[in-house]
């Protein structure tokens, strides 16, 4: 890290602590922190937090209904974390269970020994039989269907979105709004995007259910460095209410300035004529 980069990082960290940063500054700091993680630092924000507690009247407790909401949110949050953990860490046999399974008491009687010997022989015979049968089955399966593989439990888009929010440091968040104020579509929701992870999610409320035989929805990412908006993937709104869709950018996104969703012909289009824009989400400069 050269002196100029060091100075820039100090300035950004100070401004972040005192005033907050613009999106461009957030991106700049995220890039510096990614390149120089050893200089990423909370100490100025902690200092600002200590100053921010000066003269703070904390005598009024949090309202009971709000406390209940926060507790309910926490329950949901920890349940989601638990679900994620069970996906990433499959349950292991505990040492105790392992011992229980594999420990046996030695017996002294000859009859008991003979019993074990016969049992062992029977097991060997059974194992050989199972092995040969399985081999035959495998040969048969190979001719008919592919070998099934273990299917990992898939996270829901909501869980994946939460995971991204928890892990990415450079999250950009923005809300959907009307493209043409004269013809409001009243689509609500938000966009979260991480440039470092090249991953993001959109949430919609009020996006009409589409007739899949006639049209599909398509996401677009408007990048400052691209002449045409980047295709973010197609999706259908098959039910009313909130829907969450992962953004599937077909090109590397460098500097997103706006997201859009359009209605297109089934399968989507490589370049949109932007005639049916359902909503746009601008990133504040």
């Amino acid at each position, binding site marked *: 890290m050269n002196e100029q980069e*060091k100075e820039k990082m*100090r*300035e950004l960290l*100070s*401004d972040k*602590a*005192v*005033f*907050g940063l*613009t999106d461009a500054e957030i991106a700049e700091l995220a890039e510096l922190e990614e390149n120089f993680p*050893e*200089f*990423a*630092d*909370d*100490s*100025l*924000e*902690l*200092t*600002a*937090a*200590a*100053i*921010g*507690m*000066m*003269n*703070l*009247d*904390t*005598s*009024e*407790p*949090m*309202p009971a209904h*709000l*406390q209940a*909401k*926060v*507790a309910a*949110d*926490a*329950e949901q*949050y*920890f349940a989601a*974390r*638990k679900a994620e953990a069970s996906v990433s860490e499959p349950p292991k046999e505990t040492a105790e269970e392992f011992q229980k399974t594999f420990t046996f008491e030695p017996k002294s009687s000859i009859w008991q020994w003979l019993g074990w010997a016969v049992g062992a022989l029977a097991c060997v015979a059974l194992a050989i039989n199972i092995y040969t049968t399985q081999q035959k089955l495998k040969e048969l399966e190979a001719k008919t269907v592919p070998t099934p593989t273990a299917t990992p439990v898939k996270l829901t888009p909501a869980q994946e979105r939460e995971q991204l*929010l*928890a892990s990415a440091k450079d999250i950009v*968040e*923005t*809300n959907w709004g009307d493209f043409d104020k004269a013809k409001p579509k009243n689509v609500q929701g938000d966009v979260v995007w991480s440039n470092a992870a090249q991953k993001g999610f959109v949430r919609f409320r009020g996006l009409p259910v589409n007739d899949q035989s006639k049209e599909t929805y398509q996401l677009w990412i408007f990048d400052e460095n691209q002449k045409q908006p980047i295709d973010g993937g197609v999706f259908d709104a098959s039910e009313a209410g909130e829907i969450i869709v992962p953004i599937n950018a077909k090109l590397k996104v460098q500097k997103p300035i706006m997201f859009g969703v359009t209605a297109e012909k089934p399968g989507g289009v490589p370049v949109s004529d932007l005639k049916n824009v359902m909503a746009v989400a601008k990133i*504040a400069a």
Partner: protein
Amino acid sequence: MAESILHRIADKDQTAVQDCLKKYGGLVWSLARRMSTNTEDAEDAVQEIFIDVWKNAERFDESQSSETTFIAMIARRRLIDRLRYAKRRIAPDSLEDIVAEPANRADEEMQTNIEAKDAARALQTLRPEQRQVLQLSIVQGLSHQEISEATGMPLGTVKTHARRGILQVREFLGMSSLESMKGGAA
């Protein structure tokens, strides 16, 4: 020594949630009310802040700050973010009143925790302009443009006072940066 609430949360001990709300609910609620335009907005902010607290609990380092200051930092981050997106600032009754306010109260009874008390003392060591800029921005929630307009200081000067002032308060509080720990110039 009892395990900190945040470490218990990081260990997925859900019983720590109630303890956290009991101990820090008032603090977060007060910060949210101070930096939100209305009660509804403050309530939404509190919900978001506590989700951030659960997410960031494992990052708490007791050698760097108290749990109270760490939670206040998480709260400030979210509140600043919300202000930025809402493109609104706290609407003070009168900007002139705030600027004229003798906001250098170091009255220890008024301070929430030991770091807030020390911060109040640290502000007394700053140059008056640095102290004014930090109080208007951090305590009153004004943007650098608003401070520039209210005080007549050029925008760059506002930022310079803020940067120098916050570094000096950090020194006073002994909140060492990773950079200085690694021997870099602070």
